[in-house]
């Protein structure tokens, strides 16, 4: 191995070549007589067959031991007892098997790995099962088109699923969330901007109060609207009252997450804007809000998902009706969560199926909101820059295309002119055809 020291310049022009320090080569002792085996690539990742066998073997052993315990040793009755005993036995057997060829830290590592995988599997399987269970029980209601278009005014508890639907609840949910968003988005964003852009003692106080109100249980928000708007002010149970309750619940959630997002906007961007002579308003409008746009959309959409799915505020404030009501100011207006709640109170199987179908519709609405959040959230600064670049490239191509085309046409006129040179500025020109090649 040779090491070259950095040349020491002495300042004299035309100095002799810098000295090179030569370190003797590091030599690997070569066992001359040993036969050379062909080198094999070492396996770095993936599962080893021994690990898999240890897992499977421990599983089989645990099942067998559980069977022995259940039939011979102790009176184990019921599935839960057997599952608990089998799990415990599996962990013990697996630890014993691994400890045959590994030390204590490795045994602990493997045990934790198995436990973590098990816990994750239980959670993910349960969550997927909750969704599949809801879809499965609601499927017979979901298959009828009238379920999405009709309301329940003509459908009694004993009517089949071909009559009636939850169109009124879908419309009601959309109206209520629209009103709530019309209130909370401007108010919430203005407050979040206030908290970050106009700091001071008052802003700190507002932030503390808002953080405290995120703890307000949703039923208490409903109770507040019920006691003030409905009992004291005499507004009847209506979509407006429900929207008020939803707004009170959503507002702190939205302000808090929007505040966090706005605080993450880099100060250098703001300072650059101010340094270029922009005022505060222009800075917020042109720099802060566009930079934080995807985060703000996520904040709004997550708050919307919370507001559209919460039952307890609307339970107290919106009233229940079986027919379509598009006037939020007057008369009860049912929403999706409340419709689910009322459907499953009934003992009739068709009503319960309708309840599960409504739950599926509600989940679909939430998923739709999430997809929307992803699509909007993906359009951040980098994505916009990429898109601009793509458009620029397309425009370049279009601008240069006539040139290239005319050149090709000229080439068609004179196919055997070998001295076709490309212009200095023309980068997209096709390579000049070789003389013998037909073009």
């Amino acid at each position, binding site marked *: 191995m040779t090491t070259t020291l950095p040349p020491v310049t002495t300042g004299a022009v035309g100095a002799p070549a810098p000295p090179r320090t030569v370190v003797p080569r590091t030599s690997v002792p070569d066992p001359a007589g040993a036969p050379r085996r062909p080198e094999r690539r070492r396996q770095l990742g993936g599962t080893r067959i021994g690990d898999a066998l240890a897992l499977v073997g421990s599983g089989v052993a645990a099942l067998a031991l559980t069977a022995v315990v259940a039939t011979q040793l102790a009176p184990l009755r*019921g*599935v839960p*007892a057997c599952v608990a005993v089998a799990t415990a036995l599996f962990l013990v057997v697996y630890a014993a098997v691994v400890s045959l060829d590994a030390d204590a830290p*490795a045994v*602990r*590592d493997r045990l934790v*790995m198995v436990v*973590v*995988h098990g*816990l*994750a599997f239980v*959670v993910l399987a349960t*969550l*997927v099962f*909750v*969704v599949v269970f*809801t879809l499965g029980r609601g499927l017979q209601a979901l298959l009828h088109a009238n379920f999405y278009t009709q309301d329940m005014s003509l459908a009694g508890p004993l009517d089949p699923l071909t009559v009636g639907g939850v169109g009124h609840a879908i419309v009601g949910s959309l109206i209520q969330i629209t009103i709530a968003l019309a209130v909370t988005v401007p108010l919430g964003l*203005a*407050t979040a901007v206030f908290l970050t*852009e*106009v700091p001071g003692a*008052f802003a700190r106080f*507002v932030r503390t*109060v*808002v953080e*405290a*109100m*995120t*703890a*307000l*249980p*949703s*039923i*208490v928000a409903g*109770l*507040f609207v019920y006691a003030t708007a409905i*009992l004291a002010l005499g507004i009847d149970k209506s979509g407006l009252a429900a929207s008020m309750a939803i707004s009170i619940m959503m*507002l*702190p959630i939205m302000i808090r997450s929007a505040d*966090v997002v706005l605080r993450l906007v880099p100060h250098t961007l703001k300072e650059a804007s101010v340094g270029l002579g922009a*005022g*505060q*308003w222009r800075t*917020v409008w042109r720099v802060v809000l566009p930079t934080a746009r995807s985060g703000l959309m996520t904040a709004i959409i997550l708050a919307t*998902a*919370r507001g559209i*799915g*919460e*039952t*307890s505020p609307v*339970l107290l404030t919106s009233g229940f009706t079986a027919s379509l009501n598009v006037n939020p100011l007057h008369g009860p207006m049912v929403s999706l969560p409340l419709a*689910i709640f009322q459907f499953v109170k009934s003992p009739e199987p068709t009503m*319960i199926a309708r*309840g599960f179908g409504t*739950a599926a519709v*509600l*989940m679909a609405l*939430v*998923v739709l909101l*999430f997809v929307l959040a992803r699509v909007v959230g993906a359009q951040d600064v980098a994505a916009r820059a990429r898109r601009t670049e793509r458009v620029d490239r397309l425009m370049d191509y279009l601008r240069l295309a006539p040139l290239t085309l005319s050149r090709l046409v000229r080439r068609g006129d004179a196919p055997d002119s070998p001295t076709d040179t490309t212009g200095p500025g023309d980068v997209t020109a096709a390579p000049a055809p070789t003389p013998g090649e037909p073009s």
Partner: protein
Amino acid sequence: MTATDVPRRLGTRRPPSDRAFRGVVRGGGVLVLAIMSCVGVFLLVRAWQALRVAGLGFLTTQAWEPDSGNFGIAAVLVGTVLIALVAVSVALPLALGTSLYISEYAPTRLRRGLITLVDLMAAVPSVVFGLWGVFYLQGHLTDVARWISTVFAWFPPLSVQGADPSDPLSPVTLYTSSTFVAGLVVAFMITPIMTSIMREVFMQAPVGEREGALALGSTRWGMIRSVVLPYGLGGIVGGTMLGLGRALGETIAIYMIISPVFTVQWHVLQNGANSVSSLIALRYGEASPFGMSALMAAGLALFLLTLAVNFGASSIVARSRSGAHS
């Protein structure tokens, strides 16, 4: 001649557009503050009528008959806390395991999908979990409850009064609509949000320290224990407290499952439970003006409880390493 130096007065003269902008956003802040304080103050004022009548007995009475003056939140508040405790003690290991799996063990290809799935499940409406609890879990959980109560009968909260383990025909209804079932449903409801928060923090654990631990020869669990878990402690506590807050305030899933009782039910596996929010949902309709005031007082007590949990969580998270910058 030399004049003494007078400090120059520095001020900001803002253009009218900026002053208008500041005025508008300040107005938004004032409006939000007004709404929020209005809720708080109104709650306090209306609750005051009931609290003045009930006095300190409000915290110790186990009954809810406001119109005869005999009411208190001892039973419902204990029920709320018990349901939340069951939920958190089940959800904490589940969420911890799932978030560690996603951040440390899951194959990279799966990871994005799992993150999306968990975030999506955190937004599933609570009434959906309530449906699952009533129509599926309730029926399948009686065996588990019966087994636990038989094995752990020596531990008073897990015993069930009136149960006879030797009688296979003992009524199943003894084990339904219990704190345990409600707590389990709430546990699966809060697991996704807890997982989401913990996963977020675990993934931010510094790569240099992870690689340092691995380079020093630690196993994957050794690395997790010495780097990821200490770094993510704030996230674990914060996520758990947030889940606890959700569990305390949860209404509809609990309302659908429990059969309300108005005495303190210590036996979590036994039929009968109650919570403040389901009490409000149950009684708001037929409440007299004074009964409404009593319900307000109960709501206020619940609000104070969740408030304490939230502020505890945020102070712990702010002091931890991972939460310092958020």
